[in-house]
C-alpha cells in the first residue's frame, strides 16, 4: 500500500517504539526510502529522544544525592527505636 506523508506522521511515534504491526512497518519503511521529508522528521524526532535520554540534558541539582541520603540516614536512625519498617502505626 502507498502511504501518504500524513499517515506516516501519525504512526511515527509507534514506529520509533516498534509497536506498529509488521505490515504497516513495511509500508512505512517503503515510504521512508523515497521520502526525504518523512525521513528527516523521523531522524529529528529520534535525535530529540537521544538527547532527552542523555544525562547531561536533564541534570540533578548539585548535592541532591548527598542531601537525600543524609535525610534518609536520619530517618533510619529514628526508626531504629521503632518496630520494623512499615509496621509502625
Amino acid at each position, binding site marked *: 500500500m502507498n502511504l501518504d506523508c500524513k499517515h506516516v506522521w501519525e504512526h*511515527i511515534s509507534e514506529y520509533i517504539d516498534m509497536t506498529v504491526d509488521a505490515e504497516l512497518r513495511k509500508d512505512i519503511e517503503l515510504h521512508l526510502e523515497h521520502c526525504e521529508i518523512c525521513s528527516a522528521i523521523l531522524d529529528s524526532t529520534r535525535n530529540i529522544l537521544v538527547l532527552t535520554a542523555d544525562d547531561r540534558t536533564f541534570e540533578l541539582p548539585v548535592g*541532591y544525592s548527598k542531601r537525600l541520603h543524609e535525610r534518609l540516614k536520619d530517618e533510619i536512625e529514628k526508626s531504629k527505636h521503632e518496630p520494623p519498617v512499615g509496621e509502625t502505626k
Partner: protein
Amino acid sequence: MGTVQTNEAGLIARILAGEKELFHDLIRPYERMVYLTLFAIVKNESEAEDGAQETVISAYRHLASFRGDAKFSTWLTTIAINQGRRRLRKAKGAAEESIEEEADSHKGDFTPAPLTDWREIPLEALERKELRGALRAAVAELPDIYRQVFVLRDLEEQNIDETAEALGINPGAVKVRLHRARIMLQKRLAPFLRSTAPARRGFFGRAL
C-alpha cells in the same frame, strides 16, 4: 524475572527483616528517576528536591506495604507522582484535575515540522549546549499531561504499561500523549536546529 528484580526482592526482604541501612542501596538506582518524576509535575527545582526526599522517606516507611506484583520502580513512581500532585494542588489550588481530563480530546496541531537538513548534522548538533537548553525549555512548556508521559517514557525509559500504571491512565492514552508530546517537541525544536545548522540544505544535499 531479571536479576535486578531478584536482587531487589532480596534487598527488600532483608530491610524488612531489620537491616534498615540497606534501604540506601535499594533506592540509589532510582534517585534520578524520583527527582525527574517530581520535576515533571512541579517544574521547580527546590520543590522537586523536597518532594523527592519526601517520596523516598515515604517509600521507606511504607516498604512493608509493597507487594511484589508490581515492579518496585513502578511503586516508587506512583508515590512520587502522588507527592508531586499534592504539592501542585497546594501551590495552585484544586483546579488541576479537571484540566487533566479534558486535555486528551483537545484539538491541536500535531503535525511535525518538515525539514530536510537536520539529518545531516545530528552528532554535531547533539553536542551543543544550547540545544540541551532549548530541549529543557520545550519540555517544560509541554502541557502537563503530555510532559508527564514524556518524562516517564523517554527520559526515565519506563515502558508503556509501567507508565500507564504509574499515572493511572490506560496504555492507549500513554501512546497518544507520547506521540503528541514528541511531535510538539520536534516542531518546537526544528526551527532552532535549522537556525543553528550549517547552511547545507536541499533534498539532495546529503553526502553519499
